[in-house]
């Protein structure tokens, strides 16, 4: 098992390396440098700025410097907020994004699994029907669109929630629901299908033939096996949630990393762009790693690979 984890961690580092390289290369392909503003700066000023930030060096030297910087925990300097480092800026935005993301993810998993299992266990009853309708509809509408609709109904019309900003719990509700709805619906569908499949398995019949309580059969035999495919999709769902938060933060004016990224792209802020992309990739990769490990814990068949 430890070998498995070590291999995956090494792979993660390699992936991050490749991601950083691709992003770095892409950044340098964006037309107009980091200094192009509405009013063009004098060439001498541009040259001086470039020299100051080491942007006049050859590409691979820049990349090398950047990697060295990362090893020291330094993700570079932001070009728009020149007196703060990228790391500082990210750390400011991180808590908001983290709270939003975690709330949404936990909500999605709990609601999705509960709904899916309930539907499977009460197949062909109204619970099942509602769950299937719900999950099909909400699995199609992404956070961005749902967020807008929620905002219209609950902020503009009903005045129950504020339209955005950050600081009080009521401001988390709508963005979290908007973000969580799609993953929840998707997970509900998978859970339902998986549970139905598991319920039909022979070993469930064996468990009953031993005279076990139905509750025990449910938890020990059905639940654990049904969750295997769900865990598999948890990783990509988390990744989708992370990327979805970029737009949702923009709509609800949440000062998190997603909004920072959007602003950074407009401002051609190389440093900040690199930092956010790397950060997101890191988070996604960690999530995938956790999911892989969890999968090994739940399903002993793949542990001995």
């Amino acid at each position, binding site marked *: 098992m430890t070998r498995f984890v070590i291999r995956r961690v090494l*792979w993660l580092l390699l*992936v991050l390396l490749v991601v950083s390289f691709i*992003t770095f290369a892409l950044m340098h392909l964006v037309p107009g440098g980091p200094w192009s503003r509405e009013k063009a700066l004098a060439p001498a000023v541009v040259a001086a700025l470039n020299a100051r930030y080491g942007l006049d060096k050859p590409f691979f030297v820049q990349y090398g410097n950047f990697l060295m910087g990362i090893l020291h925990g330094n993700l570079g300097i932001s070009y728009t907020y020149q007196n703060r480092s990228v790391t500082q800026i990210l750390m400011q935005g991180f808590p908001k994004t983290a709270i939003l993301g975690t709330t949404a993810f936990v909500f999605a998993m709990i609601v999705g699994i509960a709904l899916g299992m309930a539907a499977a266990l009460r197949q062909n009853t109204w619970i099942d029907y509602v769950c299937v309708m719900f999950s*099909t509809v909400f699995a199609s509408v992404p956070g*961005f669109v749902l967020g807008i609709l929620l905002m219209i109904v609950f902020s503009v019309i009903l005045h129950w929630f504020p339209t955005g900003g950050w600081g009080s719990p009521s401001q988390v509700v709508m963005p979290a629901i908007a973000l969580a709805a799609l993953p929840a619906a998707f997970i509900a569908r998978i859970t339902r299908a998986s549970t139905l499949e598991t319920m039909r398995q022979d070993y469930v019949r064996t468990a009953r033939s031993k005279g076990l309580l139905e509750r025990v059969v449910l938890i020990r035999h059905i639940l654990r096996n049904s969750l295997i495919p769900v865990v598999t999709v948890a990783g990509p769902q988390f990744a989708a949630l992370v*990327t979805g938060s970029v*737009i949702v933060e923009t709509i609800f004016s949440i000062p998190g990393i997603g909004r920072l990224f959007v602003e950074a792209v407009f401002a051609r802020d190389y440093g900040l762009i690199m930092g956010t*992309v790397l950060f997101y990739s890191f988070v*996604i990769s960690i999530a995938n790693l956790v999911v892989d490990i969890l999968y090994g814990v739940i399903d002993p068949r793949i542990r001995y690979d």
Partner: protein
Amino acid sequence: MATTVNAANSSVRPHHTLWGDAWVRLRRNKLAMAGGIFIILLTLAAIFAPLITPYGFAHQDLTAILQNPSSKHWLGTDGLGRDVFARLLYGARTSLAVGIFTQVIVLGIGLPIGAIAGYAGGRVDNILMRFVDVMYSFPDILLIILIKAILGGGIYQLFFAIGLVAWVDIARLVRGQMMSVKSRDFVAAARAMGGMGPYITERHLLPNSLGPIIVSVTFNVPRAIFTEAALSFIGIGVRPPTPSWGSMISDGYAVIFASWYQVFFPALAIALLMIAFTFLGDGLRDALDPKLRH
């Protein structure tokens, strides 16, 4: 418990091809049919927009701003006096175009890569799949935004940016199909008869994998549509004067408290279109599933 069939009195079911059988099953699925009809109607409305509405997408009437729906402006007007209904129809053109053309690129890149990886196997497959893994670790919206920022420009660059990131799923799918077909007995038989790569691909691989590919494309289209809307909302997608539901939303966002109609209708349109595609995709998936055949 299975019933055992008495050979003397069992009836032989009429023989259906996979496609014929699939069509029958699809027809029976009301949600999928509803979705399909909605899409077709919207497409027709988008194509024939000039015949349906007298207003253009950018036609401003500053004497009639922020009006509620009326007989003159069916869905009201926005902050610059533009007719919302007209903008919705023309915006549909963009959305549908994005949906379709990105898939062309997705298939153009994903099919060959997946087929090569699956067919060649070994190291080639290994390298390609590692690359796919890396792509999966990228937050895809961010990558699309970056690529679009590099390419600049408008709708064509957008097709490319979205397609360049979205081919991964199809490649994986085709690779999987290729690998499972490759190992099946009838392929060995075909090879033994002298059939070569392209023959096998054409006769065996394609018919088998066409189903899942169709389903995958049906689910990819709404994702592309949504991505365009999101990007246009931020300001990186298509540029005015090209109509877009996303830019309608961002335009109306500023005046959301004054009149929420402009934001509501495009958002609703996106939602409905995506739901329609999902219903259709689900229906196609069930219809084409060989395990559910009679």
